[in-house]
């Protein structure tokens, strides 16, 4: 059980999310001789510096070869080690998709994937380095737990949870700094359980990753500007999704907007829609994200603005959905 490294507000603003991953893993690796790190020439980019300082002999660089990384990790896991494999999310999900499917998920090995540079957080690198389909891909893989932390504190929690839970994990974190959502790691993080960031009864915004902070900003703004009570759920775990929180949101607010730095096809929005549809409950619904288009090149915040997944985009979407004509009676039976 890891636990030595404690973060504070200064860490959150002075070290990037991936560096917090590196520090968390360093804390884990020095306490467990079965933990190893593997990276495809991305030790620097995925911030393994602290791990290299404390345990260089258990960091393995496989060169620019994501497929090899997953095969090597699967073999190590089969032999009893716990590999943490960090690479760019575009390539861990797509270049090595078959290895992720067969070596990691089909074999159901105890291997952890830290997929960095998620969504459009490496915006200036262009679409080759944007990961806007990885949640659709990973969510469809049996046995795989998929987590999208919203900030550094949540990344630390997710990494520790992955270490303490048998089975494959895919943890998707951004390049660079995330806006700080939490004040510490003690907010009750639990895999598969959404965190309510803001209470509300008029509409629910369900967000993940960098969009969670934007959703909270939007809720605060709308409360002051429009008097709206916007519930905000940080759906950090995409699989297994928190069905209970989604259905409760449908019942309580009957209006839902999902927000993600990912394609609207196959990601968080699709996961929420699947739960709603199978529950048989009608709901006004809008999915914010990449609308079946490759993203433009630019800074992450500029792309988020352009795509409409920043605070302004969420505010506009909430106002639009609040104006939708939606049946408000209490009789659900006629909506099956």
């Amino acid at each position, binding site marked *: 059980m890891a636990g030595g490294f404690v973060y504070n507000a200064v860490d959150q603003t002075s070290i990037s999310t991936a560096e917090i991953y590196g520090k968390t893993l360093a804390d884990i690796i020095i306490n467990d001789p079965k933990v190893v790190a593997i990276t495809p020439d991305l030790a620097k980019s995925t911030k393994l510096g602290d791990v290299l300082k404390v345990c260089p002999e258990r960091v393995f660089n496989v060169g620019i070869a994501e497929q090899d990384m997953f095969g090597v990790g699967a073999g190590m896991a*089969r032999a009893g080690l716990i590999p943490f494999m960090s690479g760019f999310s575009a390539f861990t999900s797509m270049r090595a998709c078959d290895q992720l499917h067969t070596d990691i998920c089909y074999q159901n090995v105890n291997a952890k994937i830290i997929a960095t540079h998620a969504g459009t957080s490496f915006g200036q690198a262009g679409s080759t380095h944007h990961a806007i389909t990885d949640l659709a891909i990973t969510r469809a893989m049996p046995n795989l737990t998929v987590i999208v932390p919203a900030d550094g504190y949540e990344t630390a929690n997710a990494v520790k949870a992955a270490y303490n839970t048998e089975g494959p994990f895919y943890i998707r974190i951004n390049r660079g700094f995330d806006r700080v959502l939490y004040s510490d790691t003690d907010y009750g993080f639990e895999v598969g359980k959404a965190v309510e960031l803001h209470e509300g009864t008029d509409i629910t915004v369900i967000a993940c990753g960098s969009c969670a902070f934007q959703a909270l900003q939007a809720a605060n703004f709308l409360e002051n500007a429009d008097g709206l009570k916007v519930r905000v759920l940080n759906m950090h775990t995409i699989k297994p999704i928190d069905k209970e929180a989604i259905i409760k949101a449908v019942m309580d607010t009957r209006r839902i907007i999902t927000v993600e730095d990912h394609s609207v096809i196959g990601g968080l929005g699709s996961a929420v829609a699947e739960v709603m549809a199978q529950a048989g409950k009608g709901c006004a619904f809008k999915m914010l994200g990449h609308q079946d288009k490759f993203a433009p090149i630019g800074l992450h915040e500029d792309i988020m603005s352009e795509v409409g997944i920043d605070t302004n985009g969420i505010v506009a979407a909430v106002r639009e959905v609040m104006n939708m004509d939606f049946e408000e009676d209490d009789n659900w039976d006629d909506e099956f």
Partner: protein
Amino acid sequence: MPLSKKEWLALEKKAFELRKLTIQTTVWAGSGHLGGGMSVLDLLTVLYHKYLNIKVDDPKWEDRDRFILSKGHAAIAYAPVLCDKGFNDVESLKTFNLSGSKMGMHLDSNKVIGVDASTGSLGHGASIAAGTALAARVLGKDYLTYIVTGDGELGEGSNWEGFMTINHYNLSNCIVFIDRNHCMIDGPTEEVMKLEPLADKMKAFGFNTICVDGNNIGELCEAIDAAIERSKEPCAPTCILMDTKKGAGVKTMEGDYLWHYGAIDDALFEKFNKELEEDYKARCARAEKEGK
């Protein structure tokens, strides 16, 4: 330990029995990847009956040697080897390929006892083997990892990523075999996609490369002994490039790429077994002549 004549003859007998069981399994299954199963069967026989340090009653023993069948479609031969060895019931071969069976045409390591990696999608074994071999170093264990790829399979670029890692980390505790049976689904390898000069390629990738007749148990064992000797210290890994025949042991099939996958009717079953008997006699004569 060098192969004695007596041991060679015993291995030939086991290989003969396993070939018969493989043909029988193909009949039970309705069809199968018979050609590539037979080409690699001599290797499977010598590994499971001479070299692998494994415990049938403790299949997950953490110090066991690992074997990874990267050419997973050869399961039609691998499953009989595992069942005959005692990991699984031989009766279960009657369900091979059938609905509800734990044995599909590619074996699932979480369902079939004794299988170290789920393969079938080609080009995965080398990296997995690199991982188990690296893990031995991390854990301070001296088990060996054996991995066999097909030759057509080498078209998958991921093999070469795995080979680079095996070489880079001096994983001499990982012994790579290539089943060079010269055939792919659509034809001879050199017509579909050139592999030659394959030995030079492996050498260029840093492997101590030994070329043998992969359907000659004597040659195979000699090469494996040499590879094991090198495995004691981290150094350039060994690749045993096995020149084999698709369908080895059954003259009708030998070298015919069309036998990548097929079914056997009663007449063929009888013919194949007869040819197998003749081949076995010739193999025994060779062992008698060349064995020591």
